[in-house]
């Protein structure tokens, strides 16, 4: 078995057993990147020198028998995490040359745990998108292909570069961020696992903000176990983030051993949306059947406000983004287009620095917060948001976790659905409710469509019950036995 095909857990075992060195493992991934990056555009910035230096340090610790939790494991970092001394772009022209003098809490924890950083992965600009098409550096491309259709497919978004890199075996795992589905949807499209933790579980400090009340960092990897291992390092209270939760971090990987026997799994009937492809419906039913076979009890539940989740999300998220992105004004860092006066400098800088989708969301957000519209949009959206949370709270009185599809379709060709933003926004229809409610949710690859493209199922849990969704996710993973390989994957 090649080094790049190892799971993170397997690689960790081999490193600790000194069967392989961190340098060998890192070099194998760097070679894979060299071969596939031109086709996948999964990375915006590569950091091979940093990676080799980190690998060397890891090898020294491993040799001393002082292995750190993630020692020597090559990871890819979504280019939304600020990394000290390494360019951080958020896939925007605005930050094309921005090198932060500080490190995000999540990446600092990964570094401190011995991880090796291969580079910064591509995403939708400022994480706003579901296809990677809004990246100012060109979209990442899915390593998956339809057998009879040469058009490149989207890896999903916004964490599409991370998903593509992990699926194509360019990294053992990656960080993602999820605001309305940005970890789960690309994970589903690329046939990997991804966890969006409970809001507040991981610190947002040092992550370029999109929508502060929704943004949450999480792991992406090829197995649920690998995600659990990464999450254990990434999570934890951070005094630098006022919204981070003072919850103890349990050993998430332990939850993999839990049985789902006796668990009550809810199937929310409102997720059975019109026009859902039959193969997704079939997979969803299959997933429920697997869990039932494993001893879980399947119950239909109702989340009556689900139809309002998407419009609510597309008010709350743009409102926050319109304010969060005001700091990109050309005054202190990032792009500045010189002009005669301050107003003109703002206009020119922001016109040149932001892409169309970012501008659209800033405009929507500014509109919904404006005097005269605030009550009708923002305030009402907040009310609906609390109703959506109440739906979940009530459902969780009856069930222990919810099972849904992750996305309403498999990956689509890049450039499709671009003419109508609303069609694009529909990608998030199953992922957005859990985001609005701040609940933990994961996506696990459970099958393929007729054309061999991966499909994922989503498990949503109670607040801070990542262990519960990890247990259910692992059970699904085991039953599904997903073994399909993307067309473009490292060949070592």
């Amino acid at each position, binding site marked *: 078995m090649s080094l790049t095909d190892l799971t993170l857990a397997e690689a960790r075992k081999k490193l600790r057993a000194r069967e392989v060195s961190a340098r060998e493992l890192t070099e194998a991934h760097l070679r894979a990147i060299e071969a596939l990056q031109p086709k996948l555009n999964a990375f915006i910035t590569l950091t091979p020198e940093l990676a080799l230096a980190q690998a060397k340090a890891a090898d020294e610790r491993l040799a001393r028998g002082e292995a750190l939790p993630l020692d020597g494991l090559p990871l890819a970092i979504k280019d939304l995490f*600020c990394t000290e001394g390494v360019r951080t772009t958020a896939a925007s022209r605005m930050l094309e040359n921005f090198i932060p003098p500080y490190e995000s809490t999540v990446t600092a924890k990964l570094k401190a745990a011995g991880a090796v950083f291969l580079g910064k992965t591509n995403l939708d600009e400022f994480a706003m998108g579901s296809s990677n098409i809004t990246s100012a550096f060109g979209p990442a491309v899915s390593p998956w292909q339809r057998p009879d259709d040469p058009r490149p497919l989207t890896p999903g978004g916004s964490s599409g570069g991370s998903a593509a890199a992990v699926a194509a075996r360019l990294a053992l795992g990656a960080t993602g961020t999820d605001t309305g589905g940005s970890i789960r949807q690309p994970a589903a499209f690329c046939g990997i696992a991804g966890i969006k933790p409970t809001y507040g579980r991981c610190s947002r400090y040092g992550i370029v*903000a999109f929508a502060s009340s929704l943004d949450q960092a999480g792991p992406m990897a090829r197995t649920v176990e690998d995600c659990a291992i990464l999450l254990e390092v990434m999570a934890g209270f951070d005094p630098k983030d*006022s919204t981070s939760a003072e919850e103890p971090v349990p050993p998430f990987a332990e939850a993999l051993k839990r049985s789902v026997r006796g668990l009550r799994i809810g199937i929310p009937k409102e997720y059975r949306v019109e026009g859902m492809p039959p193969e997704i419906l079939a997979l969803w039913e299959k997933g429920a059947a697997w869990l039932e076979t494993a001893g879980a009890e399947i119950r239909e539940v109702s989340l009556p406000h689900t139809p309002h989740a998407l419009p609510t999300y597309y008010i709350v998220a743009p409102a926050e983004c319109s304010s969060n992105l005001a700091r990109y004004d050309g005054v202190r860092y990032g792009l500045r287009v010189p002009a005669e006066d301050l107003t003109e400098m703002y206009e020119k800088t922001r016109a040149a620095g932001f892409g169309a989708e970012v501008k659209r969301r800033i405009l929507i957000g500014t509109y919904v917060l404006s005097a005269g519209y605030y009550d009708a949009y923002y305030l009402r959206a907040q009310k609906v948001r609390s109703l959506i949370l109440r739906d979940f709270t009530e459902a969780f009185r009856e069930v222990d976790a919810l099972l849904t599809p992750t996305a309403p379709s498999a990956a689509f060709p890049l450039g499709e659905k671009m003419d109508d933003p609303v069609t694009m926004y529909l990608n998030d229809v199953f992922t957005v409710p859990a985001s609005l409610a701040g609940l933990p949710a994961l996506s696990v690859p459970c099958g393929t469509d007729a054309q061999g493209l991966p499909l994922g199922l989503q498990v949503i849990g109670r607040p801070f019950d990542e262990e519960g969704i990890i247990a259910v996710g692992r059970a699904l993973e085991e039953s599904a036995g997903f073994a399909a390989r993307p067309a473009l994957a490292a060949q070592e």
Partner: protein
Amino acid sequence: MGYVIEGKTGPWEVVIGLEVHAQVISQAKLFSGAATAFGGEPNHQVSLIDAAFPGMLPVINRECVAQAIRTGLGLNAEINLWSRFDRKNYFYADLPAGYQISQYQHPIVGKGEIEIELSDGSTRRIGITRLHLEQDAGKSLHDQHPTKTLIDLNRAGVALMEIVSEPDMRSPEEAGAYLRKLRTILRYLGTCDGNMEEGSLRADVNVSVRRPGEGFRTRCEVKNVNSVRFVMQAIEAEARRQIAIWEEGGVVEQETRLFEPGRGITRSMRSKEDAHDYRYFPDPDLVPLVIDAAWVEELRRTLPELPDAKKRRFMEQYGLPAYDAGLLVAEAATADYYEKLARGRDPKLAANWMIGDLFAALNRTGRSIEDPPVAAEGLGELLDLLTDGTISGRIAKEVFEIMVETGEGARAIVEKRGLRQVTDTAAIEQAVAEVLAANADKVAEYKSGKEKLFGYFVGQVMKRMAGKGNPALVNEVLRRVLGGG
């Protein structure tokens, strides 16, 4: 009848409300660990949070919250145990995030009131509407470069308390008294240094006029007035402007104005139509500020004695008239000086010396009560010499001036210069005899009934004795010699 402005068509009443921005005394800024000292090198007290770098998040500074609570308690106000921070969105070069974090809907402090004293000795209660915490902005420097504006972010993120009054004031004097009283309270509490010159206390003044007995008319806001005197001038100027408009049949438009002290007028800054839409919404980076009632009580217990209470105590404990007590409690340091001076001495004598001689010396030397030319111990020594008869009152004044000038102690001055009062009756009798002998004509006049001349003889004797004669003894001897003659 209170203060009115006589217009061409009759009297007008002025309605005033103040919004005061008070910079919180704290080591660090409201949401970052950067230092807050005034006068640092430009952009040397700026954290990545203050400069709004990507991914930076605000974390509330507990001490700033404590200061706001202390201030609320000092203003006899409700403390809201649940409050929230909102974002006030607008673009400006010295506002790094593109929004100011402020408490728009749910302030930390609610309704309160303070009592002001007016020159006629009357008092009035002025309502406080609210106090909220917010961030200050940076400074735009337009005069450092021929074509560019430079930005100094040292002040960006510093905690401010915005203290909003009810529209309860009816004259420039009341507004001045309110502002001075507020400043005194803040300084007593140690929550704001009250320095208007350095901008740590700034006032926005809301002014409207009306016919006596009418409801409110449209108000205008005069922004950023930076001294008590200017506040009073700005109110008068703005009231007269509005009266002129109404009397000419015009309508006052609600707008924001600036006061120009040099010309004594206000001018338009922006009209209601240009007003920003600040798009306030709850800051999603912060959780609601929830305060423990026990903490509020702890802060209440450790509050210093406030000026009103101190004044009452001074009147009761030291028997001072209200006016004197008021002067002595205006600054905590003055009150401390007084209490040190009055301990074991005649409290009225101590008050008179402070209000008279010491305050005059402070004025003349330009020094403050925190750094006085004569410390309380030194002045106490002087008063002791006066009280025990070592020196006369006249000599005491002289000695005090020497103390101010040289910094020497009272006893040392008296000894070195031989200023000890003469109580030797023989010496006084001799001086009296000499004076009477030299003024035989006046003695005759006195004896024929011109008794006013007694004072003249006292003066001459004192002069002959270089002021050192004990006045009581001089009087006694003179009366004896003249009367018996």
